């Protein structure tokens, strides 16, 4: 320990006003992130200038030549209150101390060996544990196609709120809902609009803005358990109860906090039955129904931009 410490003199940098300017700069950056990019640049400039001045101020004491304060003799007495301390020339204290600057090579070797061996053992133990706790999370997971039953269940031009198990082995927790509309035929191929009901803001379940015809509910049995089909008339599109995000019938955002359109499922026709595949994210859709032009992106978490400059915040995506 520095002998100058512990003399009852607080060791503090002098008070400084620079942090206030630094804080203002940080606030400018944060406000600018929401409001406008130039404000971020201004805020960053303020923060850098004041941060530099602050650091310069706070370290001025260390950059000066150190004042040498001689330790007054007799301070050692202040540590022995009363007469309890043993005499300073008995026991361990009486042994001759090592010469200043002297080290013992064997000591150094044992110290290094203990620390090094400990580090090796710790590493060997830690690597599999960390791998075990983190790696499985980022492994690609295969989903089977989801069978939703015959196409004839889906009347042309009508939305059907379809509820199914995405992964039957996971059970009820993998229950998902999609809004499915039969768009009729394009050439000789059937066309469907399959919207995920998960809000693109933070993943809450959206609801159709319009009547849901519960009495016309169909329980379609499939190999992965029953699929529920409930016709609906979402005349006002879809809305999220959590934070008020609104979407039109193509899943385009019309109001509220969502950053993109509703996600969609890939779909296939297998022997006259509708099957769903992977989910993908959509920035926006031009046109409607079978003529829709879908701007498709890789599946991304809710709340993340897939287009515009904001997508640069999410350069790497974990495998899904």
């Amino acid at each position, binding site marked *: 320990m520095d002998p100058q410490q512990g003399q009852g003199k607080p060791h503090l940098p002098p008070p400084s006003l620079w942090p206030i300017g630094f804080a203002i700069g940080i606030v400018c950056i944060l406000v600018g992130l929401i409001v406008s990019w130039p404000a971020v640049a201004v805020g960053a400039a303020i923060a850098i200038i004041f941060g530099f001045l602050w650091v310069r101020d706070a370290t001025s004491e260390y950059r000066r030549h150190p004042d040498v304060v001689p330790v007054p003799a007799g301070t050692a007495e202040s540590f022995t209150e009363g007469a309890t301390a043993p005499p300073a020339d008995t026991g361990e204290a009486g042994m001759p101390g090592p010469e200043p600057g002297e080290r013992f090579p064997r000591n150094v070797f044992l110290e290094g060996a203990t620390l090094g061996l400990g580090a090796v053992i710790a590493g060997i133990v830690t690597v599999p544990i960390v791998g075990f706790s983190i790696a499985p999370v980022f492994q690609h997971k295969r989903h089977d196609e989801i069978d939703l039953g015959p196409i004839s269940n889906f009347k042309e031009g009508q939305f059907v709120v379809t509820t199914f198990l995405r992964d039957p082995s996971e059970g009820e*927790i993998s229950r998902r809902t999609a809004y499915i509309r039969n768009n009729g035929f394009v050439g000789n191929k059937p066309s469907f609009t399959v919207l995920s009901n998960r809000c693109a803001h*933070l993943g809450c379940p959206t609801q159709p803005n319009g009547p849901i015809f519960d009495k016309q509910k169909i329980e379609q049995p499939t190999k992965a358990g029953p699929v529920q089909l409930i016709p609906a008339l979402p005349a006002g599109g879809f809305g999220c109860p959590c934070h008020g995000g609104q979407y039109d019938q193509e899943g385009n955002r019309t109001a509220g906090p969502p950053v993109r359109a509703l996600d969609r499922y890939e779909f296939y026709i297998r022997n006259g039955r509708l099957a769903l595949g992977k989910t993908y994210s959509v920035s926006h859709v031009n046109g409607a129904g079978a003529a829709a032009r879908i701007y498709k992106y890789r599946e991304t978490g809710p709340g993340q931009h897939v287009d515009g400059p904001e997508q640069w915040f999410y350069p790497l995506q974990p495998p899904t």
Partner: protein
Amino acid sequence: MPRKRNRTEQMAAVAQYPLDWVEERSGLIGGLRYFLFRKVPGDSSWWHTLGSATLTAFLVQLGTGVILAMYYKPDPKSAYESVQHINNDVTLGWLVRGMHRWGASVFIILIFFHMARVFLFGAYKYPRELNWIVGVLILPLALLEGFSGYLLPYDQTAYWATVVGININGTAPFLGPYLASFLRSGSEIGGDTLARFYSIHMLLLPGAILGLIGLHLYLVVRLGVSSPPWSSEAAGRERSEPPPVPGEGLVNPSPRAAAKRPD
């Protein structure tokens, strides 16, 4: 009369014996007495008890949490039923769960009161800055306890609140999507998510908080309690009373080792 006094002394000696036994071999009794009977400023007030209150709230969480873990089943198929079972069937289960549930809010509120007291009294200043920093580390861990514990009842509120909470984490720039995947234990919330949150809630975070509370208390004892800002006593003033006489009672145990040392 003298006979009765002897009896009292005998009893005291018998009661004292195991304590002395432990003290001689570990110094723990002296340490405990040092901790409990250490000097504090004469004008410290009820405001200074907020830290102990927060500690008490945490210990209540610890105790009730251990008991709840004996009945709770961290499995998506039975989590909700097991909480209902605790609430409705287990004797006094409603009370223990209620203590844990409401105590969680009490813990967080007391942390903020304690923090406000330290801030407004200026008690974070030299030489206690490090203790403020340790407290600032405890705060987010306590909030994470709240976040991870919220999922465990596994009702609709818990599920969707966690969906939203994880997705908020996911929107953080650059590493957000990875953080969300880590919390979710995959790309979708599933059975592993609940077990993961349970483990974080009852093992990882409480361990970390306990360690930091230990450090927090060590620094409190080492640096002493600060006087309130209106204190008339000058800080850092020399103690006016004489130093304690060694060998009197357990607070200052006689230095046996020194006495037995052959000179």
